[in-house]
């Protein structure tokens, strides 16, 4: 039982082909097999959002996706948000300019969730930001500056 399955996943523009046990979560695949540790694990119950990545351009919780479900899909992780020359993505830049992070552990998930929110709704309001980030928990910032960062990024575009 649990025979390995071959999957091919594009992550940050690079194609990866690996054998995985079916029970491997996408977040484990990304961290342990592909070696991209920017995406973090903060809970066991799909509550905290620290594992958020983009699948086919939209934020999903990679702890609640099996790696086998991501076969053939296009994934962007936090490591893929800045440009090749190191220029930060506007959301990353906005977080820095507005002190939207402290310990940084929830930050990759926040940036991925927030950038997806703003892409879907460029005219986003504060209320919509707060509700839109309901799936992402932070213990350090009290959210005040995270909200400020996301609104700043939305208006910068």
């Amino acid at each position, binding site marked *: 039982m649990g025979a390995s399955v071959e999957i091919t996943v594009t992550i940050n523009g690079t194609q990866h082909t690996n054998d995985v046990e079916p*029970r491997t979560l996408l977040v484990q695949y990304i961290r342990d097999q592909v070696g991209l540790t920017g995406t973090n694990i903060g809970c066991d119950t799909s509550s905290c959002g620290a594992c*958020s990545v983009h699948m086919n351009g939209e934020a999903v919780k990679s702890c609640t996706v099996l790696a086998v479900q991501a076969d053939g899909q296009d994934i962007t992780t936090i490591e893929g948000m800045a440009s090749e020359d190191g220029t930060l993505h506007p959301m990353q830049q906005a977080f820095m300019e507005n002190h939207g992070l402290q310990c940084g552990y929830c930050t990759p998930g926040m940036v991925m969730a927030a950038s997806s929110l703003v892409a879907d709704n460029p005219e986003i309001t504060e209320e919509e930001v707060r509700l839109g980030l*309901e799936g992402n928990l932070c213990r350090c910032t009290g959210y005040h500056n995270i909200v400020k960062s996301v609104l700043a990024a939305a208006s910068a575009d």
Partner: protein
Amino acid sequence: MIPAAFDYVRAESAEEAISLIGQHGDESKFIAGGHSLLPLMKLRLAQPSVLIDIGRLDDLSYIREDGDQVAIGALTKHCDVESSDTLKQHVPLLAHAAGHVGDPQVRRRGTIGGSIAHADPASDLPATTLALGATYVAQGPNGTREIAATDFYQTFFESSLADDEMLTEIRIPKMNGAGWSFQKFNRRAQDWAIVGVSAWVRGTESGVGLVNMASTPVLAAGVSSALAGGASASDAAEQASADADPQADLNASVEYRQHLAKVLTRRALEAASA
């Protein structure tokens, strides 16, 4: 936590999915978006030995008018239900409720069929579709059948779907301009409802579904018949707990749930009638 080990197969069609589940027996389960099933598997509360992935059956993702009903493919994602112009026009209560399931990341993966089949009385869509008089279409090795929502929910996480049946479609009567209200009372925005009320009113007709008030979603028939008999929203709402059997948990006692059900039902009826 890491789920227990299982085998994985991917179905290319509904027929293949049904054939596969018949083959692998009752230790196997369908997985679509996985946002009801995977959390259980990660806590090892569910340990299927085979997962049959139906998540790529794109032909089961659709929303279309069909006479006086709207037909929704079981694999339609919550975010698509939420943003559908057809539903906003003809079944706005459902579109609105879908926008309250989980959080945005969950809504991009979870499906309406998955949520219905999971039969969690604390979820929003079972009670909402029940209130709307939905019919669920199931496909099995012997063909398809229609199951009225009122006949579908048996108890916690158990529906009347046979082990070798798959939900393929949800059919909902058009609301035809009915007023509606969705009252989801929770501690945090991402939480399940402590108690929820999903209601529509058109004249003396109504449908009221209760979330998290029993081992299944509850159709508050007593409320609707009181309204039909001319009762005020307030008086009709007093019937809210009559058909319910709420449990106590960390968030609420039985008594508090019964009280909330009445308050939220009254508020829903008032809003839907306004």
